[in-house]
């Protein structure tokens, strides 16, 4: 066991068996995918609709089990663990989904955040501490007594994140967490994601927004169930052969400036870094 790795995806293929009709052709949602995620890393996964991004995400906390190949979470094989101790996996890897309305269960914000730790038998004073800490982390402590239905989409998503954080997972997988939010909501969620990463948690972010992916240490590009590229953002964005990608504004601007004699370093892929460079 390599203790440096929190997630190991080894030759994973996955087939959805949807209709039970034997004449239906089996379509592979994942086709021999392999990669590792190191502890504390921030990895973005991008790709078109139907490329297998969400399917691979659901393998990381045993919501799905590989048809062939294996997934190790902190050294535990998800296939074995899902029979003996699925909670062990989900304690390590928490998951935040696209639609916050599908993730909230209680009529009071703080009860909702407490739901996870209660389920895994955390002592009550410890639950109190974790809930408060998680709500503060997502800047929602002052709303703790409110009903989730009175909150905006971005606020609800922050509550869903707090619920995951209260489980104290080492790694959080975000599956298009900003897809249903407005720009303000998106910014709030990205700030929280970067905050979690800076605290040392492992973050995996599945997104269609390249500006969000640019903040990651590494970007994995999926297409038709296959892993196409696994490289740092600057390398991924410099490739022209990945048709599904929109290059972020900062990357195309840096390119344009280079063509005009302004020597922008190749590793600048975010607007913040580009602005700092131009104003130094």
């Amino acid at each position, binding site marked *: 066991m390599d203790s440096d790795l929190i997630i190991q995806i080894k030759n994973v293929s996955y087939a959805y068996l949807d209709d039970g009709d034997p004449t239906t052709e089996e379509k592979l949602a994942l086709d021999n995918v392999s990669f590792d995620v190191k502890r504390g890393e921030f990895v973005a996964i991008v*790709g*078109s*609709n*139907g490329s297998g991004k969400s399917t691979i995400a659901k393998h990381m906390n045993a919501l799905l089990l590989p048809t062939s190949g294996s997934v190790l979470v902190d050294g535990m094989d998800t296939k074995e663990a899902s029979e003996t101790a699925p909670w062990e996996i989900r304690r390590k890897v928490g998951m935040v989904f*696209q639609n916050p309305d599908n993730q909230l269960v209680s009529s009071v914000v703080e009860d909702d955040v407490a739901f996870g730790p209660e389920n895994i038998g955390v002592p009550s004073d410890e639950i109190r501490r974790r809930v408060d800490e998680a709500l503060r982390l997502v800047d929602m402590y002052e709303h703790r007594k409110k009903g989730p239905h009175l909150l*905006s*989409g971005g606020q609800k998503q922050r509550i869903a994140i707090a619920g995951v954080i209260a489980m104290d997972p080492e790694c959080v997988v975000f599956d*298009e967490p900003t*897809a*249903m939010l*407005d*720009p*303000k*909501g998106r910014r709030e969620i990205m700030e929280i994601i970067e905050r979690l990463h800076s605290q040392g948690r492992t973050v995996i972010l599945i997104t*269609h927004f*390249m500006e969000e992916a640019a903040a990651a240490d590494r970007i994995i590009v999926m297409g038709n169930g296959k892993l196409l590229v696994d490289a740092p953002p600057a390398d991924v964005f410099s490739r022209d052969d990945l*048709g*599904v*990608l*929109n290059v972020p*504004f*900062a990357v*195309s*601007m840096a390119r*344009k*400036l280079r063509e*005009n*004699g*302004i020597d922008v370093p190749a590793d600048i892929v975010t*607007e913040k870094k*580009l*602005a*700092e460079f*131009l*104003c130094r």
Partner: protein
Amino acid sequence: MQIRVEDLSMIYNPGLPYETRALDHISVDIKPGEFVAIIGHTGSGKTTLVQQIAGLLEPTSGRVVAVAEDGTETVISEKGKASFAVRRKVGIVFQYPEYQLFEETVLKDVCFGPKNQGLSEEEQIERAKTALKLVGMDADEIGGESPFELSGGQKRRVAIAGVLAMDPEVLILDEPTAGLDPKGHDDILRMIDRIQDDRNITIILVSHNMDDVAEYADTVLVMNKGSLFMQGDPRYVYCERGRELKSVGLDLPAGPGFLEDLQDLGLDVDIEKLTFDETAEEIIRVVKKKWQ
């Protein structure tokens, strides 16, 4: 057909503790064939306004009228009144419209609107084929397939075709690209732009994406807390009044937004630029001068 919104107000739950003024005395004219974008925060009244224009909601006061070429006015929505005749001229594509697909085949699904309009089966199919072509799909190739077997972007195009098949003069789209991947997003926008050109119909686009609005819209309506906060062409809204837009927490398109960041960091740039190329030129000019 021109759309005239006259002093329109909408209050939800009047007299109750939850009373909300969703629209506050809105007046605006939308010209035939115009591409109008409506921007604003979640809860600013964008969706309520387009639902009024589509004749789906009764206002608390004020009205929406359709003005025909010869000057005849027909009420679309007014307290106690709604006109089905005009509703057919205004098509609305809701958020995540693919959830509204329900028929066995793509062709049947697109025929549903014209069928309800009482057209003959032949006419229905003709309309459906034309509408599918407008959204870039071939009825002969895909018409017999189940709409549920299609990809996300394709489903959405079929749903839009279903509205186009009713032959509207005004097409309202409420965040039509939400949740699509970048390619699907660009495809839908280019398609909308093409439909506007081909058919010369009025487009009303509700959007959070300022880059799209800057690129495609003729006129931008900015909603804030139920009021019409600002209106004008993209250059006016994003360049001349960009600071005000930011003061209510709305974003600028990438170009002017980046120039503002540079200005805030002390670089002496002119922020009244809109397109990518204008932005690049301005940065090159200023940075080269500074580094000389």
